[in-house]
C-alpha cells in the first residue's frame, strides 16, 4: 500500500480534504480525484501552459506542482470562472464573441492567464496581452483571436481589478 498523506485544498471556493500520494501532480488530482476535467494536460514538463490554474491568485502550471504542495492554498480552475447561474463569465463571453478559440484545448489555461492579467492590469496594451499569453501555447488560433478576445474583455471591464 503506497504511503499517502492528507492535504487540504480549496478549489473554486470548495474545501477538499484529500488523501493523496505525495507524487501525484496537482493537475491529476484536480482532474481525477475532483473530477474537474476542464484543466487539460498538454506536455507535463511545464512548457505548453495548457494546465494553467490559479493558486492563491497566481497562475501556475499544475503539472509542475505536487498536489500536496498545494496544501492550504486556494485554487481556481476554469470551472470556477462561470457565473452563478451556470452561464459564461464576461471574460468567456468575450472569447466567444471574438472567436478566441478553435479546438478549445488550450482555452482553460488561456482564460486563467487572461483573468490574472486583467485583474492586475485592466487596460492592457496589445503588447502586454501578447506578452502574457506568450506563456501558453496554442496550436490552432495563431493567437490573434485570443488577443482580440482579451482586448474585448478589457474594453468591457469583464474582470474586476484585484483588490
Amino acid at each position, binding site marked *: 500500500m503506497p504511503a499517502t498523506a492528507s492535504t487540504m485544498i480549496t478549489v473554486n471556493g470548495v474545501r477538499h480534504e484529500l488523501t493523496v*500520494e505525495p*507524487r*501525484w501532480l496537482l493537475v*491529476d488530482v484536480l*482532474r*481525477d480525484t475532483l*473530477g*474537474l*476535467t*476542464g*484543466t*487539460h*494536460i*498538454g*506536455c*507535463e*514538463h511545464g*512548457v*505548453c501552459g*495548457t494546465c494553467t490554474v490559479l493558486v492563491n491568485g497566481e497562475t501556475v502550471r499544475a503539472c509542475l506542482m505536487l498536489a500536496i504542495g498545494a496544501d492550504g492554498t486556494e485554487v481556481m*480552475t*476554469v*470551472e470556477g*470562472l*462561470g457565473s452563478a447561474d451556470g452561464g*459564461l463569465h464576461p471574460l*468567456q463571453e468575450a*472569447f*466567444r*464573441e471574438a*472567436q478566441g*478559440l*478553435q*479546438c*478549445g*484545448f*488550450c*482555452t*482553460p489555461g488561456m*482564460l486563467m492567464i487572461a483573468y490574472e492579467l486583467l485583474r492586475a492590469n485592466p487596460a492592457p496594451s*496589445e503588447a502586454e496581452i*501578447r*506578452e502574457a*499569453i*506568450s*506563456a*501558453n*501555447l*496554442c*496550436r*490552432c*488560433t*495563431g*493567437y*490573434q*483571436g*485570443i*488577443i482580440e478576445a482579451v482586448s474585448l474583455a478589457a474594453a468591457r471591464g469583464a474582470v474586476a481589478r484585484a483588490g
Partner: protein
Amino acid sequence: MAAPPRTWIGKDIPRLEDPKLLAGRATYVDDVRLPGMLQAAVLRSPHAHARIVRVDASRARAQAGVLAVVTGEDARAMTNPLPAFCAEPVTQYALAVDKVRFAGEAVAAVAAVDRYTAEDAVALLEVEYEPLPALTDPFAAMQPGAPKIHDTLPSNLVFEKTLSFGDVDGDFARARQVIRRRLRWHRASAQPLETAGAVCRYDPLGQRMDVWSNTNMINFVGWLIANTLKVPASKLNLIPMYVGGSFGSKHVLAKVIAIAGMLAKRANRPVKFMEDRVDNLLASENLACDRYYDAELAVNDQGEFTSMRVQVVDDYGAYFQFGHGTHGNALAQVTGPYRIGSVSYSVQCVLTNKCQQGVFRGAGSDAGNFCLERLVDAAAQELGVDRVELRRRNFIHAARFPFKTPVGNVYDSGNYPAVLDRALELAGSTELARMRQEARAQGRYVGIGLATAQQRSVYGPTEFWFWYDTPGLSSAPESVGLSLGPTGEFVATMFSPFWGNSPETVVAQVAAEEFGIDPAQVTVTYEDSQHGLPGAGPGGSRMAVMLTGATVGAARKLKDKLARIVAHQFEAAPEDVVFGDGKAMVRGMPDKSMTYADLGLKAYWFKLNLPPGMESGLEARHTYDHPYLTLPSADRKDLGAFYPIMAHGAHIPVVEVNPETGQVRILRYVAVHDVGTMINPKSLRGQIAGGITQGIGMALYEEYRYDAEGQPLTGSFMDYLLPTAHEVPTFEIGHVETPSPFTEYGVKGGGEGGRMIAPAALASAVEDALAPLGVRIDELPMTPERLADLVETARARR
C-alpha cells in the same frame, strides 16, 4: 453572376461549439471515466533498429495494481496488423514484433489502476535487444546493400515511380532558360496540444468493443480498425470525442486503439491509453514530409513557364502506413496557379529507422508549394524580371476555368490576379519597397516575401492509389441528418468528429440559410459508428464543402416533404411553397403558411392530416459524395479530377534578419485567401492565422533531428519548438471570393491554406532580406545557425 442575397452564409456568428469549450465542459478522450477503468503506459524502444531477443514481463506483472501486460507476441496473437494504405508488404503491429524499427516504437504496454502505477510497471519490464545498424540517411538506406528494415521487402526503397504528363523533354529542349534548384524540407510534426488516445471497453460475451477515441474516420474506416482488433466490424462502436486539434495527425489511430483494446481484453476491464507528450513526439503515426527536391522549371522566350521536372527523395521512416498519398496530394496542384504545360514527377520513397510519415496540414502540397515558388523566385532573379510581374504573366487566365491541369486534375475556378492585387494593396507594396530601401541604406536586412500558391480542398481518395496500377477506393463521403421535431426545433446530426474546425457552426449556418431560421435554433449532435452514416471526416480542407453539401441535401429532402404537407394543407402545388422567416408558405400568400412548429406537430401527431401515403415524422439524412471526382486513366497519363475544389492565396511577409545571429523577426504578414464563398469569415480568418502560425513554425522553428544512431534529439517541447505569441505578428488577412461551380453555395475549403503557403512566402522574404549578400534559401526550417552560416559563407565569397 452575383449570388443571391444571403442571410446567414457569410455571417460572423459566434460558434455553436464555443460555450462548452469555454466552460471546460467538452469531453475530450482523457475526460472519459468508466467504472473500473484502468490506465495504460507504454514501453518504447531505446534503439532505432534492433532485434527483440527477449521480453520479460514477470516483474511488471507482479507489481501491485497491475492488471495486464501485453508484448509484441500478444500483439501478434490478439491483433491483426494495423490498416495500411499502401500496397507493399510493410507490416506493422501496434507493438513491435520480433524487431524494433525506430527509437520510440512501442514494445510492450501495461494496464494498471492509474497511470503512475502503470509507469512504475513499465520501468520493471526487461527487454533484451540485439542492436542492428540504424539507417538515418535515405540515400544510404536506398542503396542495394543496405541493411533491410523489413525482410518482406527487396530493399528500403519501398516505392519508386515517375509519372509524366505532356511533352516534358521537348518543352525543356525548347526552353530559353532552365531554372534548377535543390531543396530540403525537414521533418515536422502536427503536435496538437491534445495527444492521441483511446478508451476501450470489451464485452467478451458479445465480442463487442466500445471505443472512445479522438480518432477520425469513425464512420469510414471502422471496419479496418475492427479487423485490427479482431472483433466483428458490426460489433465495434467508435464514439466521437471533442478533439483538441489534429492537423492530420489523428486520422486513423489504430495503434493507440489496438493497445488499449488488447489491454481491455486481457484485463477484462475498460482501459484508457492516453499518449503523453513524449509518446506523441516519438511515435505519432503522422509525422510530416521529409524531402529532398531536385527540381527544374523550363522558361521560354516570353518568360512563360512551359514545363517542370520534379525529383523527390522522401524519407518515410520505418513504416509506410499511409503510403505515398502525400505525393498524389502534391500532384493536385504541382503546376500551381501557372499555365505550365507539361510535368514529370519522380518519387523515391525510402524507409529509414525513424518514426513514420503520415499527413500534417498541407499533406505534401505544402512542400510542393515551397518547391514551385522557390523555382519561380529563382526564375525572376535569373531572368532579371520582377517577381510580381513574372507571376502575373504566368497565371491561368480567369476565362480558362474550369481548368484542366497537365496531370489531369481540374481547378474549378479562380481569380489569381485579383488575389495578388488585393495582397499588394493590403501590403502597401510601394511604401513597403521604399521602407526596405531605407532600411538597406541603414545597413539593415529587411526583406519582402511573396508566394502565390494553390490550396486544394476536398480530396478524392484516388490520390492514395493512382501511383499504383491497380485501382482502389473511390468514396470519400460525408453525411448529415436533419430532423424537425414536434416543437419546431431542428436537430442536426453529424457523423464525424470536431477537430477544432467549426463543423457545428457550418451545419447550423447552412441549415439556417436553407430554412430561414436562426442558427441558434439548430441543435447539433454527433453519432457514433454503430448508428452512423458514411463520413470521412475532417482532412484535406473538405468539411466546409462536404458538410454544406450534406446539409443542403438533407435540407432538400426535408423541404420536399414539408412542401408536400403545406401543399396538401392549402391545396397548392408543392413547387409553389417557399421557406423563410421561420415558416413555410405558399408563394405570395402569407395566410397560407405554417410555422416549423406547426409542421413538426402535424408531421408527428396528425397522420390523417398528412398527404396520403406519407410517413409520419420529419427527418432526412443525406450522404454527400465528392462533388467532382473522376477516375484516372489506365495509363496514368490523366489522373482525373481528384482535388478540383481549388482555393488560392497570396502571402506577403515582411521580415528583418540579423545577419550575425541569424534571427528572423516578422515585421508584418499580409495574406489574401480566396476560398470561394465564405460561410463564417471570422472562423476562416482563425484557420488562416493558425495555419500561417504553423507555417512560421515550419519555416523557422520546427524540425525533427536525429543522431547518427537514429536517436531522436527533439523529444520534448524544449527541443521541438512550437511558435508562441511572441514569434508571430498580427496577421493582416484579406479575402477574395470566387465561388466554386461544383459545390453548394460555391464554398471551397480553406483550413490548410495558411500552412500550405507560409513556408514558401517566408523563404522568399528571408532570401529577399539577404539578397544584398547573395544568399539563397533552399532549406527549411531557416534556423539561426543555418542563416548565420549562409551569411558567413556568402561574405567569405566576396
